[in-house]
């Protein structure tokens, strides 16, 4: 059985990110390629952060998910270039983040001068843009901690990188 790459992508769309299970590895934009090399299914994955502890878990989750679908030979390869950016999170992924209570990263803000101070986030709970950053790092390295000045609730913001 050699399912076509689009079918495989569909399956990977159900593999959750281990740290933010609301979105899948496909939503996150880290699956770079799916294809067959002889009898082996090769999945190219790009890391989010160089030292992201979830990277190994993601590779294992992808392998496990594909084995569960009956594919015996799976190889997850790391592809570094071009480097992943939060702009690669799909519109669907951004919507799921918001539903989960995490403000999605500002677009076109990665690698900018001023970093976090140049980024703004709307409150995922009430939608207000009247928010402030309270800590550059939150429950995971990729998120900053924000507070809404209107509804007063704290929330996580997925930093642009």
């Amino acid at each position: 059985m050699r399912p076509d790459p689009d079918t495989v992508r569909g399956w990977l769309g159900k593999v959750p990110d281990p740290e933010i299970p609301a979105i899948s590895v496909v939503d996150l934009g880290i699956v770079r390629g799916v294809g067959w090399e002889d009898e082996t299914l090769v999945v190219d994955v790009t890391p989010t952060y160089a030292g992201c502890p979830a990277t190994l878990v993601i590779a294992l989750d992808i392998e496990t998910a594909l084995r569960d679908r009956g594919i015996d030979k799976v190889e997850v390869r790391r592809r570094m270039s071009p480097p992943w950016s939060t702009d690669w999170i799909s519109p669907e992924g951004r919507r799921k983040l918001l539903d989960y209570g995490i403000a999605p990263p500002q677009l076109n803000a990665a690698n900018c001068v001023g970093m976090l101070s140049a980024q703004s986030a709307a409150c995922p709970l009430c939608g207000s843009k009247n928010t402030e950053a309270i800590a550059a790092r939150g429950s995971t390295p990729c998120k900053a901690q924000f507070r809404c000045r209107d509804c007063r609730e704290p929330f996580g913001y997925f930093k642009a990188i």
Partner: protein
Amino acid sequence: MDPLVTFCLRMGDTTLILGQQTAAWCGHAPVLEEDIAFANMGLDLIGQTQLWYEIAAQAEGQGRTPDDLAFFRTERQFLNAQLVERPNVDFAHALMRQYLFDAWHLPIQEALCESGHQAIRELAQKSVKEVRYHIDRSRDLIVRLGDGSEESHAMMQGALDALWPYAADLMAIDAVEQALVGIGMLPPLDRVACAFEAETAVTLDRATLAIPGNGHARTGGRTGIHTETMGYILAEMQQIPRSFPDARW
């Protein structure tokens, strides 16, 4: 040794030792946010180390893994800049060490984005985005604490006086870098020192801190000469893999 291997070890050893030192703040930083920040930056640095060691191991071609390079080399075989092995002492020292490192790390990563070596270029394009967040934090804290209370100012000035002489080791360039620049694998690195000077002059002035004026400089880490703290760091970092060399999770 192949200059490419030496250069990658100089970079990777520097990020590894700082990552190890930074990780030691987990559970000990003065506030929770800084605890998380130090631990997470340690993760970034150790992730970058992995990439440097992969390039070094491949160029070396002796089948060593990144773990072999981290855990089974001795002090004189480590080529990190001396700055990063300076002890944690207190939050002021850790922060100043981080800031001086970041002020060098950002411009060198920016320069390496134009490296003629594909894997180094890809590593830099990935890392530089993380490094921008690192210096964003350390610069902000240097200014806030330097230009803070009398006590925080005195602590930051003390840390700067102690650590400034070691900054020169980050920028020490010898025949290794010159050889790599010569064959186009590295871009000219003079601009890194210029960028470091410009960054520190502006930020330390904003922080009301005075750069020590005696011109004293400590170098040698990049050729394997280390200070007395290095052995203790390696002993702690390497103890488990050396005691149980074939252990697996």
